[in-house]
């Protein structure tokens, strides 16, 4: 299904990805359920009463102008906001129904279930192998050498990097190209077999070819993981996601199937943003 999006920017006309518009069947419970989430950085009320359901085994895109709170909300889902001094999160975020802010939930084990990929590729300054093996090691997922070797290989294969690095696993991960580094970081994240992968503008530091490879990868991974991606590229959101959520000034304005948001937004602010009138 191909959807033309009305855009006044010079970006290529986005083509919605293969899974697009196939919203999860109604009745299946959402993977992530956010209710009335408020985030404050000191006195700055950065996220205002956001309620959102994110389905599993699909890609959800967060779009919106800079500073609207996309990254803030993303960091709530794996509690990375805990590490920011002065940051306060209110409300409830459920992961398979469990409140992740419940005192009984350890953020360290939560982050094994919810992986994250950042804007700037940040491989550890260690070997490619150690980058991927790090997560399984600290979580004690694999103790035998061969088991770990297999896991590293499988993760690199799933991240589409194995062919390029299988003969230099001992080389430093920082020596790879930007796009390869980003796929290495994705391999690192999936090595601990998370349920959710959060991606904060994963392609904004990459060239179009590397971007295309990551998008392909996201498409592949969507069949196994719940993926949430923040992007500034409308075209990318249209290409890779099945659901889109539009944020504006700290509020969630509109959410729905990607095709709907891009062709028939209900809110004027969404309309203005995707047509390039604001942002």
């Amino acid at each position, binding site marked *: 299904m191909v959807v033309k999006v009305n855009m006044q920017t010079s970006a290529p006309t986005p083509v919605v990805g293969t899974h697009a518009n196939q919203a999860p069947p109604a009745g299946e419970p959402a993977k992530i359920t956010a209710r009335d989430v408020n985030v404050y950085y000191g006195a700055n009320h950065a996220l205002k009463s956001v309620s959102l359901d994110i389905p599993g085994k699909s890609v959800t895109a967060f779009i919106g102008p800079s500073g609207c709170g996309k990254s803030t909300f993303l960091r709530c889902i*794996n509690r*990375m906001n805990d590490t920011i001094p002065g940051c306060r999160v209110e409300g409830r975020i459920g992961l398979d129904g469990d409140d992740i802010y419940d005192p009984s939930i350890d953020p*360290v084990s939560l982050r*094994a279930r919810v992986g994250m990929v*950042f804007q700037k590729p940040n491989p550890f300054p260690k070997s490619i192998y150690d980058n991927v093996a790090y997560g399984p090691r*600290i979580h004690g997922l694999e103790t035998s050498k061969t088991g770990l070797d297999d896991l590293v290989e499988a993760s690199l294969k799933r991240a589409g990097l194995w062919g390029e690095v299988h003969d230099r696993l001992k080389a*430093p991960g920082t020596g790879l190209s930007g796009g390869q580094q980003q796929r290495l970081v994705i391999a690192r994240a999936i090595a601990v077999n998370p349920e959710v992968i959060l991606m904060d503008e994963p392609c904004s530091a990459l060239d179009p070819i590397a971007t295309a490879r990551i998008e392909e990868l996201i498409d592949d991974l969507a069949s196994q993981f719940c993926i949430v991606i923040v992007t500034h590229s409308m075209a990318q959101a249209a290409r890779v996601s099945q659901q889109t959520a539009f944020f504006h000034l700290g509020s969630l304005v509109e959410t729905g199937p990607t095709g709907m948001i891009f062709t028939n937004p209900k809110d004027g602010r969404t309309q203005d943003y995707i047509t390039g009138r604001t942002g």
Partner: protein
Amino acid sequence: MTDAAQHPSAKHLKKRYAAEARFKMYGRLAITIALAFLVILLGRIVLQGYSTFTTNTVSLPVYLDPARIDRADLSGSNYDYLVSLAVLKALGETEDELGTMSEDASALISRDLGFQILDKVKADPGLIGKTITVTGPVKADADLYYKGEIKRSVAEGNRKLNDRQLTWLDRLKKSGRVHGGFNSAFFTHGDSTEPEQAGILGAAVGSAMMLLVTALIAIPVGVMAAIWLEEFAPKNGWTDLIEVNINNLAAVPSIVYGLLGLAVFINWLGAPRGSPLTGGIVLALMALPTMIIATRAALKAVPPSIRDGALAIGASRTQTVFHHVVPLARPGIMTGAILSLSHALGETAPLLMVGMVAFVPGIPSSFIGGATVLPVQVFIWENASERAFAERTAAGIMVLLAFMIVMNATAIILRRRYERRW
């Protein structure tokens, strides 16, 4: 006129270039002045000190006269007198009744030869009655004469050696018994009251032992304190207070640490005075603030993206710090450690306060025994009256500088070697 010249910025352009040229000139001038001072300083030290590295030794056949050696008390016999007689014999002179001849002769030859004879006789009493050849340094004043630093042209009363002694030295040299050579004693002996016997090794070993104590205390404590402050401490009024105080402590004059060491460690806790242990503890206290500041700077320089990456994969705070942050900060930490140790190596004032200024012959062998260290040795020699100690002062400074250069070079090499891109 071209368009460019007509542009309104054109008339400022000349001024801007003039300002730039002026600034460059000031810079060069400053560098030149700094280099000139450095060259003068180092040049003076080298010129004054290089002669220490050579010395003149004399070989003499000494008759071990049984009449002058008490077999029952070998250590109590006067071997220096035997050496003096050997000198006179070599010169074809004979002792006079007042003993002035042998007195003049003994002022030329180091007592080292006498000690050598004692050692040999102790090892083999059968040597008594025979003639043996011993080789050792000439006295420092004789050495200075051979090096041309005591001149015959100076009035006799104004120099250490009289005309007769100078003539004897000339004749000894001519007879082929005196040889110039490398001054190994300077690098193998501890301090001595006799300049020709005095060496830097005792002080170097003392410095090394003291620095070991300093390193073993300051590095672990400093690194752990810095890691806690930087990575784990809550940011509140207390930690701010601690931070301000650490920065202030780094600026406290070092002699204050010496007073603290004297009051707390020696007078109150009874630490051994003048020992590498006490000196090392005092310098560790002094080095701690610098160590903490350097380590924190190194930790701060690690990009936050690495921390985020580790935390996001589920590493705990401790794992993040020790698996990722500290390894990346290691070159910076090591550089900070070496620089603060090399600072400690050059420190004198606090050590004077804890009694490291005593005369210590021989090489220190215990952390709780008396010892001296390189800068204090330089200080002691500088205050000695004998002329030959002046050149040893300069030579001591050269050894101290060599130590520092080695340490700083190590810091640079470590930094280069472990520095990684990220």
